């Protein structure tokens, strides 16, 4: 079912709020992984505000859908989503990165409600998600596991181990995403190593592969729904994204993998986000 115009509008509005929250957290924290947090935003918003079976007031609900943010450095953006969604008081995010805070750059499952697994070391998340999905199948549980990966982390061999195992176990209850923003810390992925063709690689490993514009809610929603109909294999949704999306001076710049903002930059970033959503709606 295509999203209705109202649904798209709502998701755009939430994405706008989350992006502003990301900018705000980065400003108050003194720095953060802002580029990758902005590139993954639409994927997480679509999942949390439309598709995931979750209850922010009951974060450990047994049959909730699970989220593994394998690209753990996107923790800042994930925290923004969880805060907007009401897993905790958003005001707590003012302590992001501060000494003793529950929120570090990489979220901690023992401290942050809604965080199903502590991640951050790259290449770990897909295996954890595979374990959850295998467990769900063996226990006859209906929850779905979602895993959001960075493209750079697909250099890790452990990703491909997990890909083999996920296909072998026919995990049609697992939907994974690659936030394909083409940038890693040291530059463009294809200048540093050779990831392409990611589609063909995952297909060869036995996955259903869908490829969408990762900033188009309608297309993201369509892919997420399509993945739910695929039988006997896991689905990888490769999302074309832009690092630093919506903030013009950050877009497609590897230097904005991690950065800090002064108040002028923060205000400019807010203005960029407003301008973007004035055009696309939301």
């Amino acid at each position, binding site marked *: 079912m295509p999203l209705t115009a109202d649904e798209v509008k709502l998701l755009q509005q939430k994405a706008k709020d989350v992006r502003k929250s990301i900018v705000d957290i980065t400003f108050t924290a003194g720095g953060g992984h802002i580029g990758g947090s902005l590139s993954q935003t639409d994927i997480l918003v679509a999942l949390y505000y439309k598709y995931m079976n979750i209850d922010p007031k009951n974060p450990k609900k047994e049959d909730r859908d*699970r989220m*593994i943010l394998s690209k753990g450095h996107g923790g800042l953006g994930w925290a923004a989503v969880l805060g907007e969604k009401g897993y905790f008081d958003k005001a707590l995010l003012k302590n992001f990165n501060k000494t003793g805070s529950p929120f570090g750059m990489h979220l901690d*499952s*023992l401290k942050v409600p809604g965080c*199903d*697994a*502590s991640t*951050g*070391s790259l*290449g*770990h998340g*897909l*295996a*954890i*998600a*595979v*374990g*959850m*999905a*295998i*467990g*769900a199948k*063996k*226990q006859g*549980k209906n929850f779905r596991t979602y895993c959001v990966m960075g493209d750079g982390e697909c250099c890790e*061999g*452990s990703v491909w*181990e*997990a890909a*083999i*195992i996920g296909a*072998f176990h026919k995990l049609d209850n697992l939907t994974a995403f690659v936030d394909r923003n083409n940038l890693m810390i040291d530059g463009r992925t294809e200048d540093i190593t050779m990831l392409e063709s990611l589609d063909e690689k995952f297909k060869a490993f036995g996955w259903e592969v869908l490829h969408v514009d990762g900033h188009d809610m309608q297309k993201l929603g369509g892919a997420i729904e399509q993945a739910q109909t695929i039988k006997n294999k896991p689905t990888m949704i490769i999302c074309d994204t832009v690092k630093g999306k919506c903030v013009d001076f950050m877009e497609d710049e590897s230097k904005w993998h991690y950065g800090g903002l002064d108040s002028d930059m923060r205000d400019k970033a807010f203005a960029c986000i407003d301008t973007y959503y004035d055009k696309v709606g939301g």
Partner: protein
Amino acid sequence: MAEGMTWSVLDGDKLTQAEIYGKVLTQLGEKNDKIIAMTADLAKSTKIGAFGDKFPERFINMGIAENSLFGVAAGLAMVGYTPVVSTFAVFAALRSAEQVRTDICYQNLDVKIIATHAGISFGQAGSTHHCTEDIAVMRSFANMTVIVPADGIETGNAVVAAMDHAGPVYIRIGRGFEPPVNTTKDYGFQIGKAVTMKDGKDVTVITCGVCVGQAMRAAKVLESQGLSVRVINMHTVKPIDREVILKAVVETRRIITVEEHNVMGGLGSAVGEVIVEGGKACAFKKLGVPDAFAIVGYPEDLYNYYKFDADGIIEAVGALMKKEIEEDENWDDET
């Protein structure tokens, strides 16, 4: 006594440590449907395949993929299973160290690791398959419990105890048949509580794993020479039994540690830390593999080569007994 060990103790004479854990785990699996056994193409070598034969629906062979072995175990633990993962120690502790640390220990997940072929028990296989670093690695991971059973019976006890213990546990065993040092399973095995195999007042040998048997043989010879030797089986290296160590310092004032591990970072280092923090001086010697990659050979030959078999322990005790501890016997002036 927790459930799990229902066969005769006499079987301990005929089975390897791995065969025994395979049997124990299978028995535990009858009543505990949360156990899920996992390996990476070593079902037969590690004997965890025995569980898979009985409960194929609760057995996962990952293929040769150790990083994901522990990542998937973490995911299974997060949805309510108690994964028991078995592979060679060198893969569990070194290749997968980060997954064990970050995915399992950091989140304090209920994953039990049974690492086989540890130390130089697979001596013929060469340095790539030796693992004389695992105790050092594993005991440095917060939340991890590290157990080094002395024989098959203790391995069974350790597996049962690990299931009753919340959080990650690393059980380290060798490759083959280890002569039993226990004659009964009912000697009060408790995680974190050392077993005093024999009392003595002149010197204490603190040891674990296969070296417990060697220490007992050495003690017998030394006793015949007129020495009184205390032998402590420190089966749990972490959390270590501080009380038994500090008592030995005061009562025997000479301590030797013996382990099938690099002398850096393992049992000897753990005991040394306790002694130093205790603030009472004693003569102290660590026996084990020196800070080197071990040579190729049959384990028994290597234990002799590196002087931590019974002969080596006897020699080291002799040297330690010649050391002057201090001039007076007054401990009150010590800090």
